[in-house]
């Protein structure tokens, strides 16, 4: 089998699919990497739910402004054309269907589009942030998975989520290190599969039935 996709490979693949001019919310962590792979000539407007459109890259260490952070509380910058606004307006953008694409991580995604990405249970205080708003409100919800399978060997793609849900029937597409998978009324539909990976091998690492799209594309890890 060829190398699985790196986080950067996945981010690059996701970025290719974001339409020019789209308003995009990137979840904390891996989804943030999408911003580093915007194809030349294309312009996305990044939304940060703490109250910013036009989020730019991290500032130089000597240009950090504590008043300008992202949803992960990290210092960021603003690009030309950006704007600041308060929380109710920021979530009006999300909940009112104005965000074209929300790209998030997940613990589990089910074949019916359910997603679980905010709680593993346990004694720690729960914390949800804007995840439930994003999956309920964005026009398209895409999940990025650095690995198709969790550390304990269980697939993150499941028939039904066992973890506490973030939202119901809301995920449109999954980008993992092994495949790109659409979710439609019939469940998982593979549109891209890692070059060299057999369909059965992918199915074995997936917790629900897979269908393969005609002309299913091959994904290749980039040499870097």
């Amino acid at each position, binding site marked *: 089998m060829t190398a699985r996709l790196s986080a950067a490979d996945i981010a690059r693949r996701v970025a290719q699919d974001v339409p020019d001019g789209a308003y995009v919310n990137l979840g904390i962590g891996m989804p943030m990497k999408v911003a580093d792979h915007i194809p030349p000539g294309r312009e996305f407007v990044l939304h940060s739910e703490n109250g910013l459109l*036009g989020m730019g890259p991290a500032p130089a260490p000597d240009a950090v402004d504590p008043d300008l952070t992202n949803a992960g509380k990290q210092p960021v910058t603003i690009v030309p*054309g950006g704007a*600041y606004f308060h929380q*109710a307006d920021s979530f*009006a953008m999300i909940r009112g269907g104005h965000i074209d694409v929300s790209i998030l991580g997940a613990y589990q995604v089910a074949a019916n589009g359910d997603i679980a990405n905010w709680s593993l249970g346990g004694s720690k205080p729960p914390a949800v942030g804007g995840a439930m708003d994003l999956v309920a409100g964005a026009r398209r919800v895409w999940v990025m998975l650095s690995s198709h399978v969790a550390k304990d060997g269980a697939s993150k793609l499941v028939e039904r989520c066992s973890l506490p849900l973030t939202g119901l029937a809301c995920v449109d597409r999954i980008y993992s290190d092994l495949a790109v998978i659409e979710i439609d009324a019939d469940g998982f539909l593979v549109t891209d599969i890692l070059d060299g990976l057999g369909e059965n091998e992918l199915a074995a690492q997936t917790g629900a039935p897979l269908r393969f799209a005609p002309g299913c594309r091959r994904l290749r890890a980039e040499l870097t």
Partner: protein
Amino acid sequence: MIDKRYTSAAAAVADCEDLRDGAVILIGGFGDAGVPERLIDAVRERGLSDLTIVSNNAGSGDYGLARLLASGCAARMVCSFPRSSGSVVFEELYEAGRIELEIVPQGTLAERIRAGGAGVPAFYTATGYGTPLAEGKETREFDGRHYVMERAIRADVALIHAATGDRFGNLTYAKTARNFNPIMAMAARTTLAEVRTTVDMVDPEVVVTPGIFVDRIVEVGA
């Protein structure tokens, strides 16, 4: 490159798919302040029919909104105060039974539009409880007070007027010409904004309508 600018109001409305017969159209302005006159004229020239127009007033004189209504394109008007001095066109249509009117308290109208933009399908308000304007509406008690349930307004198209705008669609307004324009921009599938002046970039701290709510802008001068 994102560039939402159009060269004329006619060009901005020409290929707008959401502008069609039967569409619901939000039109900004309060009295004569902040009314997107040029966009209204351009829509009138499209010769549409069966429109629902949502606007605080119903136009006056023989220009702008009144002229749009006079063209006979609107089947229905949602409005808080259609009886300003000079609202002759609307009054004649109304009295002739040629236009339907839904009268909505001004704050409820604003809140319903804002709800439409914010993904809230319905909310409760004390306004209008026990009055003819709440007849037939669901009511409910919270903490000993009575409220009316009101539904969000979402539209196909919003026509708005602003003072300045940039290529991203960020807008500012002039004084009380702001009125309904920012909330209407949020509540339509396609928002068209006429601006007095286009600028390179609106200062992000003073943007009133962020570009995410605006699809097309056209500079119309003062």
